[in-house]
């Protein structure tokens, strides 16, 4: 019934005035990003695979499904109308009318950025999983379900739908960790379930509070997030949303799952968790706190800044003190999340814009550092920094990629994290000077940790007793290069390449242009004198 209703729904007002408009236009676009992976996952799970005969075919199906989705998303990205503060590609069908639930999907600029990130991470996670040999069918079915739930949480424009997708993400992810993880995968899986369950419960309670406070007529975000609530209620909802986001991003002190999951999960799962699934935390804060509850955002801004500073500082110090390369990468992957939250805490248009770009860039950087460190540990047959040493000459591809990942975490020029961090810090130094300074200090410690990592693993003296080493395979190189390439492309062309001598985009409208759709609206409460 829902599908038929969606089919019957009129197409969204797809923009026509930007290059690429009309090439691809579908009233089902956002539904496709959710339900195509679900359908393929269901098909894979019932596909006969006697003694692993079709393992390769299953991997190809997962890959081409993701490739197709990325193509669709890229065309949608190109058609996206920049600088328009409304939801685009909207789909709205009544679902559970008795309690005001609508199947309402839509994306604005930040949502589009997140979708592209999810598409890239989806491809990378499949490529990173080519080495999976056991229960291949179940693995890729679950991986596709993870992607579907992440996409669903990104495009959901109804709080009930958001809670469903947000909560559902933990189930396939936990099963992936349980079933294909390392020796401590059971601990990692339970931690993931516990923390993410806590976050889901906080989000559900927050969503229900918003629903009740706005008359209990609708869960639509256009209703519940645009209502004027009392400051006390805003604070309550804001705190619940911070708990939900902190368990997912993760933020200190609710980061307990991150180390174990990144260290124990298969590489592809670590990539999708750090690259896309965890970014949903900051996206949730942006959508439900910063853009919706201005009073609470003002009051909770210092708390967010403190959490950001603690996260970056803790991640950097812990990375410095850890001798397991995968755990080091997990701690380092917490840093971009802290920076994203700092931008949100800034409550200034520049800070918020920096946060949105940081969602994309930080997601790629976190996935890259986690992926490359996991690949090094597999290729060098050891995770201990006491064993790894002098690997640069013996694994040149991975050495370059590790350097790129380290630079991306630090935010050096020509990589996408540079403009993101620049905007974030410029936006934050004025409104949250202590937080921004502390985050910068943490980043400096992170730089030391990264330098120590690079020195020890790549350029230190080789360990004669270490096991044999080999460079990355073609699939591993491709997925890591894809992540690094994404960082490089947006770093070089944040506004998209233009036809020389004109202002016309060549084929890419530019990440900063696309994400601008919606940011001005979100930042509007913070542009007045009170925010200065």
């Amino acid at each position: 019934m829902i599908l038929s209703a969606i089919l019957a729904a009129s197409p969204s007002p797809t923009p026509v005035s930007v290059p690429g408009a009309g090439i691809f236009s579908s009233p089902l676009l956002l539904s496709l990003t959710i339900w195509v992976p679900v359908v393929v996952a269901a098909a894979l799970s019932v596909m006969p695979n006697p003694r692993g005969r079709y393992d390769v075919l299953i991997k190809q199906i997962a890959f081409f499904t993701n490739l197709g989705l990325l193509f669709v998303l890229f065309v949608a990205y190109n058609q996206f109308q920049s600088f328009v503060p409304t939801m685009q590609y909207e789909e709205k069908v009544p679902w559970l009318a008795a309690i005001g639930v609508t199947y309402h999907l839509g994306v604005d600029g930040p949502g589009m950025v997140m979708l592209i990130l999810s598409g890239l991470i989806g491809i990378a996670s499949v490529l990173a999983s080519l080495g999976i040999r056991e229960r291949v069918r179940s693995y890729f079915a679950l991986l596709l379900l993870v992607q579907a739930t992440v996409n669903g949480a990104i495009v959901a424009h109804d709080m009930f739908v958001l809670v469903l997708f947000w909560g559902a993400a933990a189930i396939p992810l936990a099963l992936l960790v349980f079933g294909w993880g390392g020796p401590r995968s059971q601990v990692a899986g339970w931690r993931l379930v516990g923390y993410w369950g806590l976050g889901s419960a906080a989000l559900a309670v927050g969503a229900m509070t918003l629903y009740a406070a706005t008359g209990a007529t609708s869960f639509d975000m256009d209703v519940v997030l645009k209502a004027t609530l009392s400051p006390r209620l805003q604070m309550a909802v804001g705190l619940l949303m911070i708990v939900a986001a902190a368990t997912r991003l993760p933020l200190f002190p609710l980061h307990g799952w991150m180390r174990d999951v990144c260290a124990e999960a298969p590489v592809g799962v670590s990539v999708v968790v750090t690259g896309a699934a965890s970014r949903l935390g900051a996206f949730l804060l942006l959508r439900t706190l910063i853009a919706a509850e201005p009073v609470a955002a003002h009051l909770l801004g210092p708390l967010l800044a403190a959490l950001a500073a603690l996260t970056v500082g803790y991640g950097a110090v812990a990375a410095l003190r850890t001798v397991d390369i995968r755990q080091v990468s997990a701690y380092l992957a917490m840093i971009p999340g802290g920076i994203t939250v700092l931008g949100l805490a800034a409550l200034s248009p520049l800070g918020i814009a920096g946060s949105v770009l940081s969602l994309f860039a930080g997601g790629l950087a976190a996935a890259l550092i986690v992926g490359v460190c996991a690949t090094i540990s597999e290729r060098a047959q050891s995770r201990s920094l006491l064993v790894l040493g002098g690997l640069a000459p013996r694994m040149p591809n991975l050495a370059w990629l590790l350097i790129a990942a380290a630079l991306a975490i630090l935010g050096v020029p020509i990589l996408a994290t540079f403009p993101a961090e620049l905007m974030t810090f410029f936006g934050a130094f004025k409104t949250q000077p202590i937080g921004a300074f502390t985050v910068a200090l943490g980043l400096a410690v992170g730089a030391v940790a990264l330098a120590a990592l690079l020195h020890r693993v790549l350029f230190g003296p080789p360990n004669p007793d270490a096991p044999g080493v080999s460079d990355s395979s073609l699939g591993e190189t491709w997925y890591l290069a894809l992540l690094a390439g994404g960082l490089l492309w947006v770093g070089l062309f944040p506004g998209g390449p233009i036809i020389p001598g004109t202002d016309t985009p060549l084929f890419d409208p530019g990440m900063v242009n696309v994400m601008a759709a919606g940011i001005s609206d979100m930042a509007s409460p913070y542009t007045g004198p009170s925010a200065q």
Partner: protein
Amino acid sequence: MRNAVLVPEALVVAAAVLILLSGRFSWLSAGSRRRLPAVAAGVAIVAFGLELWVGATLSTYFGGALIQDRFALFAKAAVLLAAALAIASADWTTEDSTPIGVAMPLLAAFGVMVAASAGDLVALWAGLELAAAAGVVMVSLRRPDLALRSLIAGGLASALVLMGIAYLYATTGNQDIAAIRAVLLGSGPSVALAIPIVLLLSGLAMRASLAPFQLAGLPAGLGASPLGAGLVVGLIAAGAAVVAIKLAAALLPIPAVYSPYLEVLAAVAMVGGGAAALAVRAPRNRLAYLAAGQVGWLVAGLVTHYRTGVGASLFLLGAFVVAATCGPAVLGRAEGGEAAIAGLGALRPARAAALALAMLSLAGAPPLAGAFGELAVAAALAQSGHFALLALGALGWIMGIAAALSTLRTIYLQSPLEEGHRGAASALPVLTRLSSLGALALCFVIVAYGLFGSPIMGLADQGAEALGLR
């Protein structure tokens, strides 16, 4: 057309009696007896279809003792579907007696149907007792000792309910549910009324095996055959819930006499059910505790006094009765603990999927039937300001999901037991066309219930409205 409304009841009870008689007097050959489950499931499905077709007619029968309204339509359709799916998906090689095993779910469903359309307190009590008696019979086939325990506990529950009903009758001067409500509209809450209500609700909690009254019902249910366990954990608990919903609607003018007690019951059930499910490892016990936790959510919806809350409870009741009745049935023999279902996903994919979905639905995992129901109840709790209860429910929900994931891990990620080590208690369910079809149908219902839930929730809402809630 008016009398056609009673055809589903007549069909179900006639089929049950005929099947019992055929078993008693050996009317059927062994081959025909093997077809009994398919016939019974078919009868229940036909009754379900008829209920949906003719059940929309509003009318009263037997001088107002039975009322056909939207509430009755919803509850009857839900139990008929649950009975049909449970009979179809059960592994009949593990049941102790085919004729009795087939007839008792039909009789239990009939009992709940009577309670759902009851217009007075006596019909309400009689329907519940009939359903409970069917459960005792199922338990007695395998474990007479537990059946005796169940009978004694059931007697106590019945006595509590009867005392409550008697006091309520004495206080209001009426046994008609609508009349009781009308009388209570003009009176305030009093201790004289609160005591019988507490007795009544305690009896119902005992019937539903809710903590702290689960001591007799739950072990008895767990000792029964798979279908018997489903009957005790699912259908009888649903019967108690139906009675509770109807009584809560009657007592709506004076919520102070029942609401605080229900809040405590709901909180203990939600948190206790989740915690107990996490603590145990045997899949059948886990199913039972998850079911108890979901009954807690169902009770929480009644605390709200809102139509949305009662409607949400009713919507959840549909999801609950299907998953809780069919879960133990699809689990089959697997009484040897968690190891018995290790690798079931590879060996019996349809049953494994049905078991996994039933368990996840009882745990409230999105986006399955139970999750939609629990979230709807959560919305009503927020609307009525019961945030503490909502937070406790969320706590129980986390524990329930973790428990269900643990079983999923065993089903799909662990290697199966070697056949040499597989004892009788861990025997794999026997594959039959009917049971596979039943398992697949169960999967479809659990997934589709929420995803295509608008008309179902609409009907549940109308059911709450039919009880006089605004």
